[in-house]
Protein backbone atom coordinates (compact mmCIF):
# COMPACT_ATOMS: atom_id res chain seq x y z
CA UNK A 1 0.00 0.00 0.00
CA UNK A 2 1.60 3.33 -1.00
CA UNK A 3 1.52 5.77 1.85
CA UNK A 4 2.38 9.41 2.26
CA UNK A 5 1.69 9.31 5.99
CA UNK A 6 2.99 6.67 8.39
CA UNK A 7 0.69 3.89 9.50
CA UNK A 8 0.23 4.26 13.21
CA UNK A 9 -2.31 5.28 15.79
CA UNK A 10 -5.29 6.74 13.93
CA UNK A 11 -7.61 9.68 14.22
CA UNK A 12 -11.15 8.30 14.21
CA UNK A 13 -14.10 9.34 12.03
CA UNK A 14 -17.45 8.67 13.70
CA UNK A 15 -20.82 9.04 11.97
CA UNK A 16 -23.68 9.71 14.39
CA UNK A 17 -27.24 8.42 13.94
CA UNK A 18 -30.21 9.97 15.77
CA UNK A 19 -32.84 7.33 16.40
CA UNK A 20 -36.52 7.96 17.26
CA UNK A 21 -39.02 5.93 19.32
CA UNK A 22 -39.90 3.83 16.25
CA UNK A 23 -36.26 2.78 15.87
CA UNK A 24 -35.74 4.83 12.69
CA UNK A 25 -32.87 7.18 11.89
CA UNK A 26 -34.16 10.75 11.79
CA UNK A 27 -32.82 14.15 10.96
CA UNK A 28 -34.02 17.49 12.26
CA UNK A 29 -35.18 19.80 9.48
CA UNK A 30 -35.65 23.47 10.28
CA UNK A 31 -39.37 24.38 10.70
CA UNK A 32 -40.41 20.87 9.66
CA UNK A 33 -39.55 18.76 12.65
CA UNK A 34 -38.01 15.36 12.06
CA UNK A 35 -37.61 13.51 8.82
CA UNK A 36 -37.17 9.74 8.55
CA UNK A 37 -33.93 9.12 6.66
CA UNK A 38 -33.57 5.38 6.91
CA UNK A 39 -33.12 2.15 8.79
CA UNK A 40 -30.30 2.51 11.34
CA UNK A 41 -29.08 -1.07 10.90
CA UNK A 42 -28.78 -0.68 7.12
CA UNK A 43 -27.13 2.70 7.55
CA UNK A 44 -24.70 1.29 10.11
CA UNK A 45 -23.66 -1.50 7.75
CA UNK A 46 -23.19 1.02 4.95
CA UNK A 47 -21.06 3.30 7.14
CA UNK A 48 -18.88 0.38 8.26
CA UNK A 49 -18.39 -0.56 4.59
CA UNK A 50 -17.38 3.05 3.85
CA UNK A 51 -14.68 2.86 6.51
CA UNK A 52 -16.29 4.46 9.57
CA UNK A 53 -14.10 3.75 12.61
CA UNK A 54 -16.91 3.71 15.10
CA UNK A 55 -20.59 4.69 15.26
CA UNK A 56 -22.71 6.58 17.76
CA UNK A 57 -26.47 6.02 18.11
CA UNK A 58 -28.43 8.63 20.02
CA UNK A 59 -31.97 7.89 21.19
CA UNK A 60 -33.68 11.25 20.76
CA UNK A 61 -37.04 10.03 22.07
CA UNK A 62 -35.79 9.25 25.58
CA UNK A 63 -39.18 7.67 26.30
CA UNK A 64 -40.09 4.34 27.88
CA UNK A 65 -41.27 2.94 24.53
CA UNK A 66 -38.19 4.31 22.82
CA UNK A 67 -35.95 2.61 25.39
CA UNK A 68 -37.33 -0.85 24.58
CA UNK A 69 -37.02 -0.15 20.86
CA UNK A 70 -33.43 0.96 21.44
CA UNK A 71 -32.38 -2.26 23.20
CA UNK A 72 -33.82 -4.28 20.30
CA UNK A 73 -32.01 -2.05 17.83
CA UNK A 74 -28.72 -2.48 19.70
CA UNK A 75 -29.08 -6.28 19.45
CA UNK A 76 -29.61 -6.07 15.68
CA UNK A 77 -26.70 -3.68 15.21
CA UNK A 78 -24.38 -5.82 17.34
CA UNK A 79 -25.17 -8.85 15.22
CA UNK A 80 -24.15 -7.09 12.02
CA UNK A 81 -21.48 -4.57 12.97
CA UNK A 82 -17.77 -5.44 13.22
CA UNK A 83 -16.65 -2.06 14.55
CA UNK A 84 -17.28 -0.53 18.00
CA UNK A 85 -20.43 1.48 18.67
CA UNK A 86 -21.68 3.79 21.39
CA UNK A 87 -25.28 4.29 22.47
CA UNK A 88 -26.59 7.38 24.22
CA UNK A 89 -29.65 9.49 24.91
CA UNK A 90 -31.67 9.57 28.10
CA UNK A 91 -29.55 7.03 29.99
CA UNK A 92 -29.83 7.75 33.70
CA UNK A 93 -29.19 4.54 35.64
CA UNK A 94 -26.78 1.62 35.86
CA UNK A 95 -29.48 -0.99 34.98
CA UNK A 96 -30.15 0.89 31.72
CA UNK A 97 -26.42 0.86 30.99
CA UNK A 98 -26.17 -2.88 31.67
CA UNK A 99 -29.17 -3.56 29.38
CA UNK A 100 -27.46 -1.74 26.52
CA UNK A 101 -24.03 -3.31 27.08
CA UNK A 102 -25.54 -6.78 27.41
CA UNK A 103 -27.43 -6.18 24.17
CA UNK A 104 -24.04 -5.64 22.52
CA UNK A 105 -23.18 -1.93 22.74
CA UNK A 106 -19.46 -1.33 23.36
CA UNK A 107 -19.89 1.98 25.16
CA UNK A 108 -22.65 4.16 26.53
CA UNK A 109 -22.76 7.91 26.45
CA UNK A 110 -24.29 9.90 29.29
CA UNK A 111 -24.96 13.62 29.46
CA UNK A 112 -27.61 15.45 31.54
CA UNK A 113 -28.02 12.55 33.96
CA UNK A 114 -24.32 12.71 34.83
CA UNK A 115 -24.59 16.44 35.60
CA UNK A 116 -27.53 15.70 37.92
CA UNK A 117 -25.80 12.68 39.41
CA UNK A 118 -22.01 12.53 38.86
CA UNK A 119 -21.88 9.26 40.84
CA UNK A 120 -23.40 7.57 37.79
CA UNK A 121 -20.03 7.93 36.04
CA UNK A 122 -18.30 6.19 38.93
CA UNK A 123 -20.91 3.40 38.99
CA UNK A 124 -20.52 2.71 35.27
CA UNK A 125 -16.71 2.81 35.47
CA UNK A 126 -16.63 0.48 38.48
CA UNK A 127 -19.10 -2.06 37.10
CA UNK A 128 -18.27 -1.99 33.41
CA UNK A 129 -14.88 -0.28 33.11
CA UNK A 130 -13.94 3.25 32.10
CA UNK A 131 -13.61 2.18 28.47
CA UNK A 132 -17.43 1.79 28.34
CA UNK A 133 -18.17 5.20 29.82
CA UNK A 134 -18.35 8.14 27.42
CA UNK A 135 -19.29 11.50 28.92
CA UNK A 136 -21.06 13.76 26.45
CA UNK A 137 -20.68 17.48 27.11
CA UNK A 138 -22.66 20.16 25.29
CA UNK A 139 -20.62 23.36 25.60
CA UNK A 140 -21.24 27.00 24.68
CA UNK A 141 -18.75 29.85 24.90
CA UNK A 142 -19.24 31.90 28.06
CA UNK A 143 -16.45 34.45 27.83
CA UNK A 144 -13.50 35.04 30.10
CA UNK A 145 -13.94 33.52 33.56
CA UNK A 146 -11.13 33.56 36.13
CA UNK A 147 -8.92 35.17 33.48
CA UNK A 148 -9.35 32.22 31.12
CA UNK A 149 -11.69 31.48 28.22
CA UNK A 150 -14.57 29.41 29.54
CA UNK A 151 -17.38 27.34 28.08
CA UNK A 152 -20.70 26.69 29.84
CA UNK A 153 -22.01 23.16 30.14
CA UNK A 154 -25.55 22.94 28.75
CA UNK A 155 -28.08 20.22 29.51
CA UNK A 156 -31.55 19.16 28.33
CA UNK A 157 -30.61 19.37 24.69
CA UNK A 158 -29.00 22.77 25.07
CA UNK A 159 -32.01 24.40 26.71
CA UNK A 160 -30.50 24.80 30.16
CA UNK A 161 -27.24 26.44 31.28
CA UNK A 162 -25.80 24.64 34.29
CA UNK A 163 -23.25 27.10 35.59
CA UNK A 164 -20.55 24.45 35.23
CA UNK A 165 -17.37 25.20 33.33
CA UNK A 166 -16.77 22.58 30.61
CA UNK A 167 -13.11 21.95 31.47
CA UNK A 168 -13.82 21.72 35.22
CA UNK A 169 -16.70 19.32 34.59
CA UNK A 170 -14.68 17.17 32.18
CA UNK A 171 -11.79 17.02 34.67
CA UNK A 172 -14.13 15.94 37.46
CA UNK A 173 -15.76 13.35 35.18
CA UNK A 174 -12.41 11.85 34.17
CA UNK A 175 -11.44 11.61 37.84
CA UNK A 176 -14.71 9.77 38.46
CA UNK A 177 -13.90 7.30 35.68
CA UNK A 178 -15.15 8.68 32.35
CA UNK A 179 -13.09 7.04 29.62
CA UNK A 180 -13.79 9.41 26.74
CA UNK A 181 -15.33 12.85 26.25
CA UNK A 182 -17.79 13.49 23.44
CA UNK A 183 -17.59 17.26 23.16
CA UNK A 184 -20.25 19.13 21.19
CA UNK A 185 -19.89 22.83 20.50
CA UNK A 186 -23.27 24.60 20.63
CA UNK A 187 -21.70 27.61 18.99
CA UNK A 188 -20.78 25.50 15.98
CA UNK A 189 -23.40 22.73 15.88
CA UNK A 190 -25.53 22.90 12.76
CA UNK A 191 -23.51 25.76 11.24
CA UNK A 192 -21.26 23.71 8.96
CA UNK A 193 -18.58 26.31 9.67
CA UNK A 194 -15.93 24.00 11.10
CA UNK A 195 -15.34 22.45 14.51
CA UNK A 196 -14.55 24.58 17.57
CA UNK A 197 -10.79 24.03 17.69
CA UNK A 198 -10.27 26.32 20.67
CA UNK A 199 -12.78 24.46 22.85
CA UNK A 200 -11.54 21.06 21.67
CA UNK A 201 -7.82 21.74 22.20
CA UNK A 202 -8.50 23.28 25.63
CA UNK A 203 -10.08 20.04 26.84
CA UNK A 204 -7.98 17.59 24.86
CA UNK A 205 -4.66 18.97 26.07
CA UNK A 206 -5.78 19.10 29.69
CA UNK A 207 -7.26 15.59 29.83
CA UNK A 208 -5.62 12.18 29.65
CA UNK A 209 -8.59 10.59 27.86
CA UNK A 210 -9.61 10.85 24.20
CA UNK A 211 -11.75 13.80 23.15
CA UNK A 212 -14.26 13.36 20.31
CA UNK A 213 -15.01 16.69 18.63
CA UNK A 214 -18.57 17.29 17.45
CA UNK A 215 -20.53 20.15 15.91
CA UNK A 216 -19.71 22.17 12.82
CA UNK A 217 -18.23 19.51 10.52
CA UNK A 218 -17.93 20.66 6.93
CA UNK A 219 -15.09 20.03 4.49
CA UNK A 220 -11.77 18.20 4.73
CA UNK A 221 -10.08 21.31 6.14
CA UNK A 222 -12.48 21.36 9.11
CA UNK A 223 -11.40 17.83 10.02
CA UNK A 224 -7.71 18.54 9.38
CA UNK A 225 -7.94 21.59 11.64
CA UNK A 226 -9.69 19.84 14.49
CA UNK A 227 -7.14 16.99 14.42
CA UNK A 228 -4.10 19.30 14.26
CA UNK A 229 -4.94 22.63 15.96
CA UNK A 230 -7.88 21.16 17.90
CA UNK A 231 -5.86 18.13 19.11
CA UNK A 232 -9.01 16.01 18.76
CA UNK A 233 -8.60 12.24 18.96
CA UNK A 234 -11.76 11.64 16.94
CA UNK A 235 -14.36 13.67 15.09
CA UNK A 236 -18.10 13.05 14.91
CA UNK A 237 -20.52 14.20 12.23
CA UNK A 238 -24.03 13.43 11.02
CA UNK A 239 -25.41 15.68 8.30
CA UNK A 240 -22.40 15.62 5.97
CA UNK A 241 -22.54 11.83 5.90
CA UNK A 242 -26.34 11.39 5.89
CA UNK A 243 -26.76 13.90 3.06
CA UNK A 244 -24.03 12.22 1.06
CA UNK A 245 -21.88 15.39 0.98
CA UNK A 246 -19.00 13.17 2.05
CA UNK A 247 -18.56 9.44 1.88
CA UNK A 248 -16.52 8.41 4.93
CA UNK A 249 -13.98 6.76 2.60
CA UNK A 250 -13.57 9.87 0.41
CA UNK A 251 -13.08 12.02 3.49
CA UNK A 252 -10.50 9.65 4.95
CA UNK A 253 -8.52 9.46 1.72
CA UNK A 254 -8.48 13.26 1.61
CA UNK A 255 -7.28 13.42 5.24
CA UNK A 256 -4.61 10.84 4.49
CA UNK A 257 -3.30 13.11 1.73
CA UNK A 258 -3.12 15.91 4.29
CA UNK A 259 -0.85 13.74 6.43
CA UNK A 260 -3.47 12.80 9.02
CA UNK A 261 -3.15 9.16 10.10
CA UNK A 262 -6.43 7.41 9.39
CA UNK A 263 -7.44 3.80 8.84
CA UNK A 264 -7.76 3.10 5.15
Amino acid at each position, binding site marked *: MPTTAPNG*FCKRIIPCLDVDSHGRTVKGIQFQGLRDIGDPVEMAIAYEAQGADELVFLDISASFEGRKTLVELVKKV*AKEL*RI*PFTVGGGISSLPQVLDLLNA*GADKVSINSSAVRNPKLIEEIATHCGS*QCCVLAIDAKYHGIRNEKPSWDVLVKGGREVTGLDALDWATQAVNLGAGEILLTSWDKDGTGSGFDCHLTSTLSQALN*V*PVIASGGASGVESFTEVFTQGKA*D*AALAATIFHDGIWQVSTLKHALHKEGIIVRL
Partner: protein
Amino acid sequence: MPNYKQVDVIDYGGGNVGSLLRSLERLNIPYQLFAGDTTENPFPTGTNPIILPGVGAFEALMQALHTRGHVTVLKQLVQNQKVPFLGVCVGLQVLFEGSEEASDSCEGLGFLKGKVVKFTQGKVPQIGWNYVNAKQAGWQEGFVYYVNSYYAVPEDPSAVLFESVYEGTAFCGAVAKENITAFQFHPEKSGEFGQALIAHWWERVNEQ
Protein backbone atom coordinates in the same frame (compact mmCIF):
# COMPACT_ATOMS: atom_id res chain seq x y z
CA MET B 1 -4.16 -32.91 9.73
CA PRO B 2 -6.83 -32.16 12.34
CA ASN B 3 -10.27 -31.09 11.26
CA TYR B 4 -11.73 -29.45 14.32
CA LYS B 5 -15.49 -29.37 14.69
CA GLN B 6 -15.62 -26.43 17.10
CA VAL B 7 -13.73 -24.12 19.44
CA ASP B 8 -14.10 -24.28 23.20
CA VAL B 9 -14.56 -20.82 24.72
CA ILE B 10 -13.55 -20.24 28.33
CA ASP B 11 -16.36 -18.45 30.19
CA TYR B 12 -15.34 -17.04 33.55
CA GLY B 13 -18.50 -15.06 34.24
CA GLY B 14 -17.01 -11.65 33.64
CA GLY B 15 -16.40 -9.58 30.59
CA ASN B 16 -18.47 -9.20 27.49
CA VAL B 17 -17.80 -12.28 25.37
CA GLY B 18 -20.86 -11.60 23.19
CA SER B 19 -19.05 -9.75 20.43
CA LEU B 20 -16.43 -12.49 20.09
CA LEU B 21 -19.15 -15.14 19.88
CA ARG B 22 -20.97 -13.16 17.19
CA SER B 23 -17.68 -13.02 15.26
CA LEU B 24 -17.41 -16.81 15.43
CA GLU B 25 -21.03 -17.08 14.25
CA ARG B 26 -20.33 -14.85 11.26
CA LEU B 27 -17.34 -17.03 10.39
CA ASN B 28 -19.38 -20.23 10.79
CA ILE B 29 -17.03 -21.51 13.48
CA PRO B 30 -19.12 -23.57 15.93
CA TYR B 31 -18.31 -22.94 19.60
CA GLN B 32 -19.20 -24.15 23.06
CA LEU B 33 -18.91 -22.20 26.28
CA PHE B 34 -17.22 -23.74 29.32
CA ALA B 35 -18.10 -21.94 32.54
CA GLY B 36 -15.85 -23.84 34.94
CA ASP B 37 -16.72 -25.94 37.95
CA THR B 38 -20.00 -24.17 38.64
CA THR B 39 -21.64 -26.13 35.85
CA GLU B 40 -22.32 -29.71 34.72
CA ASN B 41 -20.04 -29.53 31.71
CA PRO B 42 -17.29 -27.41 33.20
CA PHE B 43 -14.08 -27.77 31.21
CA PRO B 44 -12.73 -28.31 27.71
CA THR B 45 -11.17 -31.75 27.29
CA GLY B 46 -8.49 -30.85 24.78
CA THR B 47 -10.20 -32.26 21.72
CA ASN B 48 -10.83 -28.75 20.37
CA PRO B 49 -8.86 -25.49 20.19
CA ILE B 50 -9.47 -23.15 23.12
CA ILE B 51 -10.29 -19.42 23.13
CA LEU B 52 -9.83 -17.21 26.18
CA PRO B 53 -11.56 -13.83 25.76
CA GLY B 54 -10.53 -11.15 28.20
CA VAL B 55 -12.02 -7.86 29.29
CA GLY B 56 -11.21 -6.01 32.48
CA ALA B 57 -8.25 -6.18 34.81
CA PHE B 58 -5.40 -8.73 34.93
CA GLU B 59 -5.91 -9.63 38.59
CA ALA B 60 -9.70 -9.88 38.28
CA LEU B 61 -9.34 -12.25 35.33
CA MET B 62 -6.78 -14.44 37.13
CA GLN B 63 -9.01 -14.58 40.22
CA ALA B 64 -12.04 -15.52 38.12
CA LEU B 65 -10.04 -18.25 36.34
CA HIS B 66 -8.89 -19.63 39.71
CA THR B 67 -12.38 -19.45 41.23
CA ARG B 68 -13.89 -21.37 38.30
CA GLY B 69 -11.11 -23.97 38.32
CA HIS B 70 -9.88 -23.01 34.85
CA VAL B 71 -6.20 -22.47 35.75
CA THR B 72 -5.34 -26.14 36.40
CA VAL B 73 -7.17 -27.23 33.28
CA LEU B 74 -5.55 -24.60 31.05
CA LYS B 75 -2.10 -25.54 32.37
CA GLN B 76 -2.75 -29.18 31.59
CA LEU B 77 -4.22 -28.62 28.12
CA VAL B 78 -2.40 -25.58 26.77
CA GLN B 79 0.98 -25.82 28.50
CA ASN B 80 1.45 -29.60 28.69
CA GLN B 81 -0.70 -31.07 25.92
CA LYS B 82 -0.10 -28.13 23.53
CA VAL B 83 -3.75 -27.78 22.57
CA PRO B 84 -4.17 -24.86 20.09
CA PHE B 85 -5.06 -21.70 22.01
CA LEU B 86 -6.22 -18.18 21.16
CA GLY B 87 -6.19 -15.40 23.76
CA VAL B 88 -7.76 -11.98 23.27
CA CYS B 89 -6.92 -8.70 25.07
CA VAL B 90 -6.37 -9.47 28.77
CA GLY B 91 -6.53 -13.10 27.57
CA LEU B 92 -3.11 -12.36 26.05
CA GLN B 93 -1.74 -10.60 29.14
CA VAL B 94 -2.51 -13.43 31.58
CA LEU B 95 -0.36 -15.80 29.48
CA PHE B 96 2.65 -14.02 30.97
CA GLU B 97 4.17 -14.23 34.44
CA GLY B 98 2.81 -11.03 35.95
CA SER B 99 1.60 -7.48 35.34
CA GLU B 100 2.28 -3.99 36.62
CA GLU B 101 -1.51 -3.71 36.89
CA ALA B 102 -1.71 -6.51 39.45
CA SER B 103 -0.19 -6.97 42.89
CA ASP B 104 3.20 -8.76 43.01
CA SER B 105 1.55 -11.80 44.56
CA CYS B 106 -0.78 -12.22 41.58
CA GLU B 107 0.84 -14.63 39.16
CA GLY B 108 -0.24 -14.96 35.57
CA LEU B 109 -0.58 -18.32 33.84
CA GLY B 110 3.10 -18.12 32.94
CA PHE B 111 2.84 -20.02 29.64
CA LEU B 112 5.11 -17.35 28.14
CA LYS B 113 8.08 -15.73 29.86
CA GLY B 114 7.83 -12.00 30.37
CA LYS B 115 5.83 -9.27 32.06
CA VAL B 116 2.98 -6.89 31.30
CA VAL B 117 3.77 -3.18 31.64
CA LYS B 118 1.88 0.12 31.42
CA PHE B 119 2.15 2.74 28.67
CA THR B 120 4.12 5.73 29.88
CA GLN B 121 3.47 8.01 26.88
CA GLY B 122 0.30 9.56 25.49
CA LYS B 123 -3.28 9.20 26.65
CA VAL B 124 -3.84 6.00 28.58
CA PRO B 125 -5.65 3.79 27.73
CA GLN B 126 -4.89 3.68 24.06
CA ILE B 127 -8.38 3.72 22.54
CA GLY B 128 -8.74 3.35 18.80
CA TRP B 129 -7.26 1.96 15.63
CA ASN B 130 -3.59 1.23 15.17
CA TYR B 131 -1.54 -0.54 12.53
CA VAL B 132 0.01 -3.96 13.16
CA ASN B 133 3.36 -4.81 11.58
CA ALA B 134 3.82 -8.55 11.11
CA LYS B 135 6.98 -10.01 12.70
CA GLN B 136 6.28 -13.58 11.63
CA ALA B 137 5.63 -15.04 8.19
CA GLY B 138 2.17 -15.98 6.98
CA TRP B 139 0.17 -13.13 8.50
CA GLN B 140 -1.35 -10.04 6.80
CA GLU B 141 -0.83 -6.53 8.14
CA GLY B 142 -3.62 -4.02 8.71
CA PHE B 143 -5.49 -1.79 11.16
CA VAL B 144 -6.96 -3.16 14.38
CA TYR B 145 -8.98 -1.73 17.28
CA TYR B 146 -7.20 -1.48 20.63
CA VAL B 147 -8.43 -0.59 24.11
CA ASN B 148 -5.48 -1.10 26.45
CA SER B 149 -3.41 0.59 29.12
CA TYR B 150 -0.96 -2.31 29.41
CA TYR B 151 1.01 -4.44 26.96
CA ALA B 152 3.14 -7.57 27.21
CA VAL B 153 6.92 -7.64 26.92
CA PRO B 154 7.85 -11.22 25.96
CA GLU B 155 11.30 -12.36 27.08
CA ASP B 156 11.61 -14.23 23.81
CA PRO B 157 11.41 -11.58 21.05
CA SER B 158 10.65 -14.23 18.44
CA ALA B 159 7.28 -14.80 20.17
CA VAL B 160 6.09 -11.39 18.92
CA LEU B 161 3.60 -11.86 16.07
CA PHE B 162 2.50 -8.23 15.57
CA GLU B 163 4.07 -4.98 16.68
CA SER B 164 2.36 -1.57 16.84
CA VAL B 165 3.58 1.88 17.84
CA TYR B 166 1.70 4.10 20.29
CA GLU B 167 3.00 7.62 20.96
CA GLY B 168 6.53 6.53 20.09
CA THR B 169 6.43 3.31 22.09
CA ALA B 170 6.73 0.11 20.04
CA PHE B 171 4.73 -2.61 21.76
CA CYS B 172 3.68 -6.19 21.30
CA GLY B 173 0.25 -6.34 19.62
CA ALA B 174 0.12 -10.11 19.34
CA VAL B 175 2.13 -13.21 20.21
CA ALA B 176 2.45 -16.58 18.51
CA LYS B 177 4.58 -19.39 19.84
CA GLU B 178 4.01 -23.10 19.25
CA ASN B 179 0.33 -23.82 19.98
CA ILE B 180 -0.34 -20.36 21.47
CA THR B 181 -1.64 -17.32 19.56
CA ALA B 182 -2.94 -14.19 21.29
CA PHE B 183 -4.10 -10.71 20.24
CA GLN B 184 -3.83 -7.64 22.47
CA PHE B 185 -6.37 -5.81 20.24
CA HIS B 186 -10.00 -6.78 19.67
CA PRO B 187 -10.21 -8.73 16.38
CA GLU B 188 -13.99 -8.96 16.86
CA LYS B 189 -14.17 -5.13 16.70
CA SER B 190 -11.56 -4.67 13.98
CA GLY B 191 -13.80 -4.74 10.92
CA GLU B 192 -13.18 -7.07 8.02
CA PHE B 193 -9.45 -7.34 8.78
CA GLY B 194 -10.15 -8.48 12.35
CA GLN B 195 -12.59 -11.12 11.11
CA ALA B 196 -9.94 -12.29 8.66
CA LEU B 197 -7.40 -12.66 11.49
CA ILE B 198 -9.72 -14.98 13.45
CA ALA B 199 -10.44 -16.93 10.25
CA HIS B 200 -6.72 -17.18 9.54
CA TRP B 201 -5.99 -18.52 13.03
CA TRP B 202 -8.74 -21.12 12.55
CA GLU B 203 -7.30 -22.18 9.18
CA ARG B 204 -3.82 -22.50 10.65
CA VAL B 205 -4.86 -24.67 13.60
CA ASN B 206 -6.72 -26.91 11.18
CA GLU B 207 -3.69 -27.20 8.91
CA GLN B 208 -1.12 -27.95 11.60
